């Protein structure tokens, strides 16, 4: 491409600047972790806490990853290659659990599955056993946390595996069938290996999210690194120790990012646009159809229906809460809007610069992913350091701007994805076609780029809004005076053993999340057809 000449102007620096804005808090956290002097408690944390934190986190990630694969891959297989009653509905609604933040799932399932909760109570009533006479899985454990996180995050793998099953491996599957392979063997010998890069890419994203979790682990009393960082800051009062702990988490998250990128490169996303066909699905009947349907329903219920309905029930059972959620709703909307606007501008700048420039500087390709990989607690820490350096209090407007900055740093990547996705509809030849028709830069932006980006822009905006709405740890650390968001309110109530009060803010977050998730689902389903 010949645009390079125009990038020799100082304007070329703008995408680089945006990248630096995004990378700033990440680099700051690393810098503080490496160079700041040890706090008093660091020795204690190093000797007594670091290993348990790390082992718990690794155990949690391993179990979460395993569960996600076990839930998502067979589900994707079922949905992409078989037809059964309700398949079309399950296809999109299996993504719904993405709308429920991990901590909300934890509140609900902890309530449901605890010894005094409805499940165990009903069990005791049915069997007349006492609570001491039977074993029941304990949710307040690392394994319990893993189940919760897997329920919330499995759609990441479901989405990528489904795409892989219904596209590039189709021909391979048909070839394998013609060679007499079928059923389970087909699944393990051909389908899984063919879809492996896609599964790994989705899994790495999901585990990146899992390692960033604070709310669910804190509520379930599981001492992960995410919890440890906040504790080091708040209980030990040592942000520098927190920053050192954060280094471990950053290392972990970055390796997931690397794995995701490598796997994505291998998954061969490019499809022959002339060869797109909707896969011929095998029609299931009778018992098989019933089982397939039941399987999907069960997962939907466990990951979404039951926990959300439980919260709704708790909320309604106790009547209308006295304290208005008006203030936190307004705070949430303002903060999420500001964060969305800033992150969106960053995302658009990066996407356009990378799309139109053959050899974009590495920093513009890396920055968003690095910010996304860095857990909110770590970025919040950077915000606090900055605040201290600026000699500012948390009551001021500066804290607000910092928080918006942190949001952009963390979530810009979530905005770039849908934008890139819309641009796949626009091969480079499209721009050349427009240029050969003597249409100038500015007109091309309005006549080609904007219309093509607009569906992606809508999705990007909504996804950013909801991601920021759900964000807990960074908001917890940096929110300015009187800016409690719904997430903060839910967390505060739940930590205060007042689950009932926590239900309304939690439900509002879920409701706000459903629309963008559905839109995303629709886009993903449709993107296949548009390639025809």
């Amino acid at each position, binding site marked *: 491409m010949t645009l390079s000449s125009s990038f020799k102007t100082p304007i070329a620096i703008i995408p680089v600047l945006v990248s630096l804005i995004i990378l700033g808090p990440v680099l700051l956290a690393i810098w503080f972790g490496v160079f700041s002097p040890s706090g008093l408690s660091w020795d204690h944390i190093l000797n007594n806490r670091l290993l348990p934190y790390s082992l718990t986190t690794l155990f949690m990630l391993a179990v979460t990853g395993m569960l996600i694969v076990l839930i998502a891959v067979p589900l994707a297989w079922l949905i992409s290659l078989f037809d059964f009653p309700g398949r079309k509905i399950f296809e999109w609604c299996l993504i719904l659990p993405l709308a429920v933040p991990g901590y909300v799932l934890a509140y609900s399932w902890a309530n449901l599955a605890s010894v005094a909760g409805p499940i165990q109570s009903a069990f005791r009533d049915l069997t007349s056993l006492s609570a001491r006479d039977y074993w029941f899985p304990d949710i307040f454990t690392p394994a319990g946390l893993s189940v919760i996180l897997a329920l919330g995050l499995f759609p990441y793998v479901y989405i990528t595996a489904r795409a892989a099953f219904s596209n590039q491996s189709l021909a391979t599957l048909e070839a394998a069938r013609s060679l007499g392979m079928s059923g389970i063997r087909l699944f393990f010998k051909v389908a899984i290996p063919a879809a492996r890069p896609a599964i790994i890419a989705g899994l790495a994203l999901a585990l990146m999210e899992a390692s960033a979790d604070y709310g669910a682990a804190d509520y379930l009393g599981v001492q992960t690194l995410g919890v440890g960082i906040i504790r080091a800051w708040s209980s030990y009062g040592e942000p520098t120790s927190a920053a050192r702990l954060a280094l471990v988490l950053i290392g972990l998250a970055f390796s997931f990012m690397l794995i995701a990128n490598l796997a994505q490169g291998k998954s061969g996303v490019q499809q022959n646009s002339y060869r797109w066909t909707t896969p011929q699905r095998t029609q299931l009947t009778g018992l098989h159809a019933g089982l397939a349907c039941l399987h999907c329903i069960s997962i939907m219920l466990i990951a979404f229906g039951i926990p959300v309905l439980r919260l709704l029930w708790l909320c309604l059972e106790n009547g209308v809460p006295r304290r208005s959620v008006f203030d936190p709703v307004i705070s949430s909307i303002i903060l999420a809007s500001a964060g969305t606007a800033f992150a969106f501008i960053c995302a658009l700048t990066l996407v356009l610069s990378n799309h139109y420039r053959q050899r974009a500087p590495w920093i513009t390709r890396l920055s968003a992913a690095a910010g996304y990989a860095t857990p909110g607690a770590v970025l919040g820490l950077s915000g606090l350091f900055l605040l201290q350096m600026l000699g500012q209090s948390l009551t001021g407007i500066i804290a607000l701007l910092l928080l918006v900055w942190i949001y952009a740093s963390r979530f810009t990547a979530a905005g770039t994805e849908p934008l890139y996705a819309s641009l796949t509809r626009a091969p480079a030849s499209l721009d050349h*076609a427009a*240029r050969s028709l003597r*249409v*100038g830069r500015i007109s091309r932006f309005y006549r080609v780029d904007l219309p093509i980006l607009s569906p992606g822009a809508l999705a990007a905006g909504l996804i950013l809004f909801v991601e920021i709405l759900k964000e807990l740890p960074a908001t917890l650390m940096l929110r300015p005076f009187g800016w409690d968001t719904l997430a903060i309110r839910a967390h505060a109530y739940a930590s205060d053993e007042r689950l009932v009060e926590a239900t309304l803010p939690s439900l509002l977050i879920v409701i706000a999340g459903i629309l963008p998730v559905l839109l995303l689902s629709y886009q993903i389903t449709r993107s296949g*057809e548009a390639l025809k």
Partner: protein
Amino acid sequence: MTSNSKALRVEAISKRYGKRTVIDSVSLDLQPGEITALVGPSGAGKTTLMRLIAGMEKLDRGTIRSGDTILSTEAAHQPIEQRNIGLVFQDFALFPHLSVTGNIMFGLHTKDRAERQSITQDWIDRMRLGNRRDAFPHQLSGGEQQRVAIARAMAPEPHALLMDEPFSGLDPELRHATRQTALSVVREAGIPALFVTHDHAEALRHADQIAVLNAGTIAQSGSPDELYMKPNSLSVATALGDIQSVDTAQLPDALKAELPDVPKLFMRPEALKLDPNGQHEFKVIRANRAGTLCELTLAAGNAELVCGYILDQLPPVNTSVNVSINSHYVFSWPVSDL
């Protein structure tokens, strides 16, 4: 022929990527109203040459001019949007957010409204897209997309038209009709046109001029007849049709005597004429139909020769046929060219 038609001249241009020279001192003359086919093996630089002419790439040496206007030199590069060269892409590159009408009208922004509409209407009619005017690209068949792409490129009256494998994505049935429509439109406009193709029959049948590109250089250019009958190298001969290499030592002496005395010869299928009076009698090893022609594999000494004929009936295998040599289709080149 419209008044603004001018020749497109490519003069000794070169392009390097890093140390690799992909286009090496290529010259090409594209005359108004003439269709030139650019053929050659994959990786020969066909697409790069096209991108250089279109202005998508800058060249390292040489000049490209349209009439008296200089498009590219080492020092100056006129951007694509100022060249007024129509482009048709392999993937058509239709704007997914615009209807058929919107796509065709896209490049007419310099015209006033009424003119814009009448030109668009004219192209919709010429390309028989009347009932598809409001359809979006993803709703169109491949042939329809192709016609929209050509209409869009031609509507602004470009000085030249470049097409990158424009027909390769189409079904064979559609291909012929679409190609006819497209090329007749180009001829009518009287502008120089260049298309890249892999299909030698397509190049031979439709081009006024063929340029064979090999390893970044023009191996040979000229009329289809000239190139088919007098290829200057194996690469040119291969690019334009089937050709077999024959180890002369393996041939029977009688046949050898009629052929040039070189160790290696190249024959097109037409080289052995079926001739009841032919002096050579060879056994048929295989006989099958290959479209219009029938393909016979004959045992000539220790060599197997493949020949093509129009036959009503295939000769049985293991019978013998009499043939004579048609030396127009027998080539030999200096060893250095092989």
